[in-house]
């Protein structure tokens, strides 16, 4: 996409980032013990903690990813919102209080409170690290996407910028600062999403989506002359070539030396319909719609082709109530832009062509996760697997669990969690309006769905865009900081201090934690660059699946089955990690990343939880039966 630098946004951005850094340095000066570095000394008020919980949870995946996926795949994006929130039920009803009573600083400590087993320390710290890294990838991808319109920088620069700022925050302060940063960010995110939703409803729907000073590109439709299924001529254009991709035909035409690709709807209305294209030439240059980036011929898209209200076709609706907005989209027709890739000589071409989708289809699951009439066994399994991972993953995320220790009592932990559920639930309902609003108001960047919400805000005015971008950026900062604290805890506390028995003193423990934070941060930067362009909610789905498979069976058995042995727990963590990672690394998305083609992948399952979670459950049971708990362990407790 082509973006101008927004100076208003830039000003807000620096003020906000300055505020966040100032806050963390302020709290950084006040503390130095390892307990305050990892768990804010257990002194945070429950209400602050509750909103901070929400702040932690409403990461780039929620704000950028869910809105983006709703904008391009309709209800399937909302599945993430439903699943993400449902996961809190597991956390609240089964895990929150017992964990608070068990734990010290980290997930590993809590899991090991009854055993003092080295195998659990090692496996749990590895799983914390892997889950945190998988959760870090989408945050970094989101950060890169955000800075493109905000600062006019390339994706990689954004990733490095976020990485550097977060490393500075974490290395200077720790958990106390991230709690207040998350509180501030969580609160602002909810308020601003409400404001954005009010704008969307007040604006209503229109076709073409032109409001304020926004203009929408009018896509060309040309009539070709056809002979023997081949286009022979098009008025004012010269015909270069045509290619068949699946059931679609794409035709390359040229005019005034500029080459453009059109979709030929031969069997419907026999028209050539303008597409958006990105062409990577052999010499390394990239053309947008056949021209250089600076010519600005690449457009934002997504619109309604028909607006139907009470059976009547309108060109605009005026202000709408929330239910009216949803039902009007359901009755109307949406134009989405879908991607195909093709090779033309030595050029790699990505074509984004318009696809008319009925609103009733758009407001049902099935555009991404096929479960309707066009479903097969794999696609149905994928849907169930995703819903399972989202439901079971939340309670097992190490950076969420760590926040249970930042309040004084189990009662406070419970109240924090309920406040978080209410705040997050409210926010997720708003994402439905923001996502749909972005999908139909001509603001989508076809290269990345992640920018749906901020770009929609930009259509309503520079001020709203700048504040929302700054908050979204802070969202990424806060989440990445929390994740890096959790990972550095796993390395410095669990692995070096406990597993390797280095018995570090308090100062050394903090120092090692900070070094670990820098290393994880650099690693996250590299991965953020590698996964550019993939929807961040989709990526987070993987982190949830690994957490659900590696950690949750261990936690549930520990809490609800007295006989559970340390060998059973360690074996289940290992099985969960290996099986989920194996399925992810051989999935169609990864096969596409390796350049082998998604359709050639070893299997068609995108989310591993359906297989890896039951496997881990079975492992903890079988290994506990094979290697039962020793008698001495029964009474062994650590405090």
């Amino acid at each position: 996409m082509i973006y101008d630098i927004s100076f208003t946004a830039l000003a807000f951005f620096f003020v906000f980032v300055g505020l966040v850094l100032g806050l963390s340095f302020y709290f950084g000066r006040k503390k130095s013990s390892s307990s305050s570095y990892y768990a804010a000394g257990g002194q945070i008020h429950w209400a602050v903690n509750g909103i901070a919980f929400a702040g932690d949870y409403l990461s780039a995946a929620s704000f950028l990813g869910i809105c983006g996926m709703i904008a391009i795949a309709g209800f399937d994006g909302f599945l993430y919102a439903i699943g993400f929130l449902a996961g809190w039920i597991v956390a609240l009803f089964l895990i929150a209080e017992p964990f608070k009573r068990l734990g010290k600083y980290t997930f590993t400590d809590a899991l090991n409170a009854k055993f003092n087993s080295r195998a659990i320390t090692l496996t749990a710290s590895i799983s914390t690290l892997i889950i945190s890294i998988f959760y870090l990838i989408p945050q970094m991808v989101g950060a890169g996407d955000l800075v493109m319109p905000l600062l006019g920088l390339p994706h990689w620069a954004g990733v490095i910028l976020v990485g550097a700022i977060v490393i500075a925050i974490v290395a200077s302060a720790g958990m106390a600062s991230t709690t207040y940063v998350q509180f501030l960010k969580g609160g602002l995110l909810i308020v601003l999403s409400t404001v954005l939703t009010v704008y969307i409803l007040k604006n209503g729907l229109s076709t073409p989506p032109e409001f304020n000073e926004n203009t929408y590109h009018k896509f060309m439709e040309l009539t070709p002359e056809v002979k023997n299924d081949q286009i022979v001529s098009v008025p004012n254009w010269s015909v270069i070539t045509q290619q068949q991709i699946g059931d679609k035909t794409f035709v390359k035409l040229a005019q005034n030396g500029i080459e453009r690709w059109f979709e030929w709807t031969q069997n419907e209305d026999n028209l050539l319909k303008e597409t958006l294209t990105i062409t990577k030439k052999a010499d390394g240059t990239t053309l947008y719609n056949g021209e250089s980036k600076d010519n600005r011929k690449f457009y934002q898209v997504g619109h309604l082709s028909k607006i139907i209200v009470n059976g009547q076709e309108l060109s605009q609706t005026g202000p709408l109530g929330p239910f009216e907005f949803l039902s009007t989209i359901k009755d109307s027709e949406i134009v989405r832009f879908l991607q195909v890739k093709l090779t033309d000589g030595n050029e790699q071409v990505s074509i984004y062509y318009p696809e008319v989708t009925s609103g009733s289809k758009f407001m049902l699951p099935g555009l991404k996760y096929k479960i309707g009439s066009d479903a097969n066994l794999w696609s149905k399994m994928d849907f169930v697997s995703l819903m399972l991972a989202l439901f079971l993953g939340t309670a097992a995320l190490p950076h969420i669990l760590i926040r249970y220790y930042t309040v004084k009592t189990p009662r406070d932990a419970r109240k924090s969690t309920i406040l978080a559920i209410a705040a997050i639930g409210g926010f997720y309902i708003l994402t439905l309006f923001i996502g749909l609003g972005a999908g139909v108001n001509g603001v989508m960047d076809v290269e990345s769905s992640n920018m749906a919400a901020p770009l929609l805000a930009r259509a309503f005015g520079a001020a709203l865009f700048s504040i929302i971008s700054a908050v979204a950026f802070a969202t990424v900062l806060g989440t990445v900081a929390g994740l890096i604290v959790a990972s550095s805890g796993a390395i410095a506390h669990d692995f070096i201090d406990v597993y390797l028995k280095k018995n570090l003193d308090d100062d050394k423990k903090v120092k090692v934690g900070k070094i670990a934070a820098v290393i994880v941060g650099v690693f996250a930067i590299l991965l953020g660059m590698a996964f550019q362009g993939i929807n961040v909610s989709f990526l987070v789905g993987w982190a949830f699946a690994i957490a659900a498979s590696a950690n949750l069976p261990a936690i549930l058995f520990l809490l609800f089955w007295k006989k559970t042995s340390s060998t059973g727990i360690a074996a289940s963590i290992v099985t969960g990690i290996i099986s989920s990672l194996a399925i992810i690394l051989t999935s169609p998305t990864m096969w596409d990343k390796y350049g082998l083609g998604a359709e050639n992948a070893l299997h068609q399952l995108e989310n591993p939880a359906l297989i890896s979670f039951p496997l881990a459950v079975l492992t903890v049971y079988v290994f506990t039966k094979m290697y039962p708990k020793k008698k001495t362990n029964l009474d062994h407790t650590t405090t």
Partner: protein
Amino acid sequence: MHVNNSAEEKEIVTQQKSKLGVRLFFVYLICYAGFVILGVFKYELLATTVFWGLNLALTYGIGLIVFAVVLGIIYNYYCTKYEDQAEETENLTEGDSK
């Protein structure tokens, strides 16, 4: 549930809360699984218009979010009640022994 009880909380309260938590979890699990099962086996039902012009998928989805919040509030209400009752009993016992 076999967790360490902190000094200030009685075993009976922990058990009451745990039992309630597990029950509410299963109530929600059934509702959530219902949505997934509908999606896989009775997909066409999700398209049915329910009310305010919304289809079943949207109504069910938003309903699951709201229901989670409602269950959370119910859970907190009863947990707080159990804890307060236990505290009151303890205070009364202490008062009697003086």
